[in-house]
């Protein structure tokens, strides 16, 4: 088991962090220009796409490093949606879409009650991450996976108001929308487990950034003639938040390692990642907001963006109790 970053991974982190510090503007929404540079200069869109399809063929350990940074920077737009689609398509192994993904196109993936006839798909998708920005969606209909072009006929989509202001969702109705069958939908593809790992990596970034922000503030904000970080109640709460971040990082590294190297351990690692990191991320974000005092409650301050991202992420793959139930099942309790 490897829980440490190697030198290349650390360089990747530094590069992504540097770029996002300069270019991520959470309040300004999706910027195709920024995404183009993320993909072009940093090669993020093809990171885990196999080399034969124009990608870098990297693993989940590298992807987790990137997700942690995009999470920490609250990168707005359909980045996570596209990564989710990339994960699904690498498992399915679709050359055409993987090639497009490596080129930087926006694709998403969603679950819903759909019917498909081999050439078209019908039904409703209530909440699609990045649904307005994506050009293609990957869905399961019946026993098969399909790709549907969202700019084509038979597709109507409407934007949804979201709690997380940095990341849009859409309601999509497919009415015999032309679709290309990608192959059989098999649980053995393990797509869900890998989405859980990727999301946990983002959550780790969110919680780390939230902790960093409040630690920095506690060093410059005074009350009662002292810096607030010198108050024991604040200091001890921050120490507890640090403990959560340390454990979350350990779990994320482990889950990413399992996704790359130990598929047998992946289901449990993935459920653990969502059950622990999802919860810890929200708790740290919420405490970071409260510890800011009134300023953290204002619209202009970024604290609420972190809290809302943390909550939206926590429920993204279903109510958190499902991850807990999955652990019980895997433990054969």
């Amino acid at each position, binding site marked *: 088991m490897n829980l440490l970053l190697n030198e290349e991974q650390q360089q990747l982190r530094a590069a992504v962090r540097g770029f996002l510090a300069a270019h991520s503007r959470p309040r300004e929404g999706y910027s195709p220009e920024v995404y183009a540079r993320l993909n072009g200069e940093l090669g993020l869109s093809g990171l885990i796409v196999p080399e034969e399809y124009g990608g870098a063929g990297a693993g989940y350990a590298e992807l987790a490093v990137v997700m942690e940074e995009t999470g920490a920077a609250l990168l707005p737009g359909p980045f996570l949606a596209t990564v989710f689609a990339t994960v699904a398509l690498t498992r399915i192994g679709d050359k055409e879409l993987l090639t497009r993904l490596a080129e930087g196109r926006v694709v998403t993936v969603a679950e819903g009650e759909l019917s498909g006839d081999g050439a078209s798909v019908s039904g409703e998708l209530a*909440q699609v991450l990045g649904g307005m920005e994506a050009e293609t969606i990957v869905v399961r209909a019946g026993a098969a996976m399909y790709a549907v072009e969202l700019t084509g006929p038979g597709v109507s989509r409407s934007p*949804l*108001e*979201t*709690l*997380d*202001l940095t990341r849009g*969702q859409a309601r999509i109705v497919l009415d015999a929308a032309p679709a290309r069958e990608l192959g059989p939908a098999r649980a053995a593809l393990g797509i869900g487990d890998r989405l859980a790992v990727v999301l946990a990596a983002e959550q780790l970034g969110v919680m780390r950034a939230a902790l960093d922000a409040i630690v920095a503030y506690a060093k*410059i*904000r*005074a*009350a*009662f*003639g*002292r*810096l607030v970080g010198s*108050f024991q*109640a*604040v200091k001890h709460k921050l120490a507890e938040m640090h403990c959560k971040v340390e454990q979350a990082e350990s779990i994320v590294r482990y889950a990413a390692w399992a996704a790359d190297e130990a598929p047998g351990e992946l289901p449990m690692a993935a459920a653990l990642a969502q059950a622990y990191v999802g919860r810890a991320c*929200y708790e740290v974000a*919420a405490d970071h*907001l*409260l510890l800011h*005092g*009134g*300023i*953290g*409650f*204002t*619209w*202009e301050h970024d*604290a*609420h963006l972190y*809290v*809302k991202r943390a*909550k*939206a992420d*926590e*429920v*993204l793959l*279903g*109510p*958190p*109790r499902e991850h*807990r*139930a999955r652990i019980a099942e895997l433990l054969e309790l």
Partner: protein
Amino acid sequence: MDLAEYRRAAREWLDANVAIEDPHEFMAKLYDAGYSGITWPAAWGGQGLTQAEEAAFAEVARDYTLPLQRFSIGLGMCGPTVVDRGDDEQRRRWIRPLLRGEEIWCQLFSEPGAGSDVASLQTRAVRDGEGWVVNGQKVWTTNAQYADWGLLLARTNVDAPKHKGLTMFAVNMRHPGVTVRPLRDMTGRAHFNEIFFDDVPIPDTDRIGAVDDGWSVAVTTLLHERLSISAGVGMGGSKGNPTTVEALRERLDTTDPYVRDRLVELHLRTQALHLFNQRLAQETKAGIFPGARGSAAKLLLAELTMFQADLATSLVGPEAALGDTPLAFTFSWAPAMALGGGTNEIMRGIVGDRVLGLPPEPRVDKTVPFKELKVGTQT
């Protein structure tokens, strides 16, 4: 008049007048009917009755939705401060219009650099001939957009330690030097305001209490604030709250044992606090003053509010990520109770110091001249 009769009459009056929508019209009628300022001294326009009548009216009024929100700061904090600490001329000028809803008040204590530590505020009031001139900024001000008067705590002496250089004033909120700007909070709406003072004059006759003795006046105000919070004013109640057991049981699959147990946990915490509040109310009625124990109730309410917003969104799942829903609003509003009226840390300190009588922390800010003190954000 016995209390049962008092209650009956109150209900009759409320039934007849609850339909009035205009807040000012309603408030005037409420006053004329004798239900505004029930325990306030008759000499200044109150009814001069007892806590028993006030509690009886509050109990009856709980069944109605009344348009009193914009008067709440004046009735709960500013008015009682004037009654307790103003001079007779001030009481004569301000109390009756306040009780009748003719003049609206807001409270001007908090500043961007002075939240939990209100006494470190930096807004200055400087002597100018017979009166004063104010410059500075206040924040988190409820009802400032309606207000005619503001109860203003300002620094009048920077050479004294921070608690000893403050003075309390009533400031004319209609003066052109006063700018009221809505302050958007985490919900995306503006429930509060920021206030900017730019050379705003105040006559010395609008000073409340002695020069440099404003902190002791503010303590009176804050005491009334806590009383009005623990009495349930501004608690909003649970009607329409999507994070209660009642609301969640309608929305969730309660055959799921995990969901059931989480709702039991919420029920436990809700009932525990509800019964504690009931006991405090019964004590108050029996003449036992809850004092700092009210801070425990406020702390518990703040914690419960955060807990239930978190729990409800977790149980609801992906739909909770939608915006513009009652659940999203309640979630975004949840931190307000933990941040307003003293943070959870401040409340725990009050309970530890005043209820449990624990020894004080060593203080570094009580004796230094204000101008030498570390204040606000250090850049």
